[in-house]
């Protein structure tokens, strides 16, 4: 194992106040450490010096919870393909490197503190239709609804999204189309999702617009940054589903509210 001497430029900010980059020297970082463990090490050193450590989001540290969210040298989750920040290891850097560490930047992701941002917009988009309306206890037997392997596998590809927001941070427009298309696409593809397909699509897209995410201009930065390699083809599908739903809606064919029953 060897050690790295690094120069960090880390974004520091308190909510509602302007932020700035702080220069932090990071000597003797073990190359086996993960990026977040490197942050732990510098935080321990800051605490020992009586300074406040850098706040950052993290939880599972195995690339699945989607909580970690750093922009590293301008790239969400850093330089390694298909890798979250927590799975990025320091051996991908060289001694002497200067590393810029920023929060995911988007109008819809306000900074809470330092590298911590509020991604509540993603939850609200899902609340606007990212579900199948089924009561607990009501369903039929699982095998009474055959789903071809190809369809199930494709739905699983979309479902692999961990909701981290790297797609938004990578996009110059801060568009959330990759996230929304994966979430809507999984359910719009499956038979269970058909009855609510139009409502779901309109609901989620309209909420996305309301949250202040930008428009998609087909740059595909999102796909390149996605730690789960979600394909931009889901965006194509969402656009198609949206067009159909919007036309039906324009002609009054989409029921906006469920009726009360006779």
């Amino acid at each position, binding site marked *: *194992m060897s050690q790295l001497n690094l120069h960090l430029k880390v974004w520091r900010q*308190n*909510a509602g106040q302007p932020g700035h980059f702080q220069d932090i020297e990071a000597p003797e970082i*073990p190359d*086996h*450490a*993960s990026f*977040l*463990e490197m942050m*732990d*090490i510098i935080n*321990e050193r800051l*605490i*020992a010096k*009586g*300074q406040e*450590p850098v706040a*950052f*989001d993290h*939880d*599972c*540290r*195995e690339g*699945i*919870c*989607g*909580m970690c969210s750093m922009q590293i040298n301008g790239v969400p989750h850093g330089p390694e393909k298909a890798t979250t920040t927590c*799975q990025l*290891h320091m051996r991908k850097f060289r001694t002497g490197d200067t590393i810029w560490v920023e929060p995911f930047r988007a109008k819809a992701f306000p900074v809470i503190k330092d590298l*911590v941002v509020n*991604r509540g917009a993603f*939850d609200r988009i899902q*609340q606007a239709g*990212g*579900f*199948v*309306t*089924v*009561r*607990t*206890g*009501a369903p*039929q037997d*699982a*095998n009474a*609804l*055959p*789903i*071809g*392997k190809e369809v*199930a596998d494709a*739905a*699983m590809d979309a*479902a*692999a999204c961990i*909701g981290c927001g790297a797609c938004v941070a990578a996009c110059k427009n801060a568009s959330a189309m990759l996230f929304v298309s994966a979430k809507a696409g*999984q*359910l719009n593809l*499956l038979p*269970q999702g058909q009855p609510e397909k139009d409502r779901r699509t309109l609901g989620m897209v309209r909420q996305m617009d309301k949250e202040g995410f930008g428009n998609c201009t087909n740059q595909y930065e999102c796909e390149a940054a996605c730690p789960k390699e979600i394909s931009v083809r889901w965006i194509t599908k969402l656009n198609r589903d949206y067009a159909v739903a919007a036309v039906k809606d324009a002609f009054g064919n989409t029921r906006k509210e469920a009726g009360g029953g006779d």
Partner: protein
Amino acid sequence: MSLNSNIPSGPMAMKWSKHKQDSKLINPKNKRKFTILVVGSGLAGSSAAATLSELGYKVKCFCFQDSPRRAHSIAAQGGINAAKNYQNDGDSVHRLFYDTVKGGDFRARESNVHRLAEVSVSIIDQCVAQGVPFAREYGGMMANRSFGGAQVSRTFYARGQTGQQLLLGAYSALNKEIAAGGVQMFPRTEMLDVVTVDGHAKGIVTRDLVTGKIESHAGDAVLLCTGGYGNVFYLSTNAMGCNVTATWRAHRKGALFANPCYTQIHPTCIPVSGEYQSKLTLMSESLRNDGRIWVPKNAADVGKPAAQIPEADRDYFLERKYPSFGNLAPRDISSRAAKEACDAGLGVGPGGRGVYLDFAEAIGQFGQKTIAERYGNLFAMYEKITGENGYKQPMRIYPAVHYTMGGLWVDYNLMSNLPGLHVLGEANFSDHGANRLGASALMQGLADGYFVIPTTIANYLVHQKPGSVTTEHPEFKKAVEVCTAQTKQFLNNKGKRSVDSFHRELGLLVWDKCGMARDKAGLTEALKRIPEMREEFKTNVVVPGSGNACNPELEKAGRVADFMEFGELLCLDALNREESCGGHFRTEHQYPDGEAKRDDENFSYAAAWEYTGDFSKPTLNKEPLIFEEVHLAVRSYK
């Protein structure tokens, strides 16, 4: 204290049906008047919050993460068991029940396990209806695979992300109810205390992790769905935020903590590589199907590259000790054997805590392509973390803490001894005994949340006047004062050591003395050291920053303070249990061949500990385990 487990009478297979018939109902108009507080948003919490809201109750749900979808259930890889018998291989509710009781080394409550097996089939139906993309066969039917401790294929899965997909299903149900106005969600909110009024749980105190505000929430019942305590060991496969705070603070308010010494160690994790290590990563134990586990025979070979150690100088210790199961010996046994090899100075890799998992023979036999098809994602993950190529040199693995079977004591209704306080999922103690089988944690979380609590909670609520307690009650003020004082104490402390340094020290001690193997001398030493450590923590911890803002160090300080208290109970329970069973191995109690030796005559009980005001002197309450269906036997894997 007398413990009433409220197990229904009648034959085992009829108990749950009978209990559902006998359970109270609350009419829809009245349900709206009740507020239920759900703490935690993993499989148990999300599914409970969503289902209770569907039924008409008002629900408030709390999680410390930034979104309910990030709870650590998300990380479960393998699958979820259900007695569907889709494979026509002889599975049944009874067989799942039996396997789970036996897998738990006969230390679980039979009636709860039977109910779990019964509702397992409905869980799968429910998840499919939500749009969970389970693996399918070409004909469109559900696919299954086998898992440890069973001879049938009853595990349902979604690639290696079953936990994520099931949690996203429960989260979508939760979102549906949030949108409908039935659930109010409080993300980035941590529970600091349970508020009891006349002995009943009637609310909680929380800290808003963004603003630092300490707040009160009143309710007619409280559900703790807050997971396990594996992070008492500091290093574990748990997420960094997993903690014992909610259950521990409930314990301090009178809830009994049962069987804390039942902890599960998983054998195939990536070893610790240095002091900076923050967590351990699990690799699926399916790797043991083709990998051979060994260490050098001679300590002199330990530092050498594996390729330079000739075949004759390697000890394939699992194949040697357990010829019929070989490298597929159960989790607890494989873990202990690896520890013994490393204790003998034969461990490989940095720090000497690792054993080889070697694929050379399998690659020679089947070719690298076939091995890559089987385990490619695991080899890639291994390389990402260690920088080593598992095809070219053996992987290094070491056991790590993975799951905790102990938890707050609950009755058949999932209610603790504190009326109104219910405990679901990993946070309770009831279903896995001394050892949990693979693919059973997801099953239990969802069983409790979707199917058990929605029925059983009415048995409590029907006797309550809704909204009888508000946050104006003096008990809330008292609890808020205690929490505020703790925050102030941390921030004003002029200590020298960081929270993490204490957590790491505690973890190392507990892992060493109360980990894979335990003995009286070690536990006694730990019991002496923990209170000393706790004292030092009080006076010498430093917590920078402010109490009125996002402050992750402050969050950690509160959690570690609780681990410091809980760690003592863990060791006390391990010392009290003078037998070996499942994940609890006392070296004094083993057969000559090294197998765990249970003592059914003296220890066939759940140990439910009561807080007395002195952490070193809790009162032991015993719930005798009565086996009506299953015949107690010795587990053997020779």
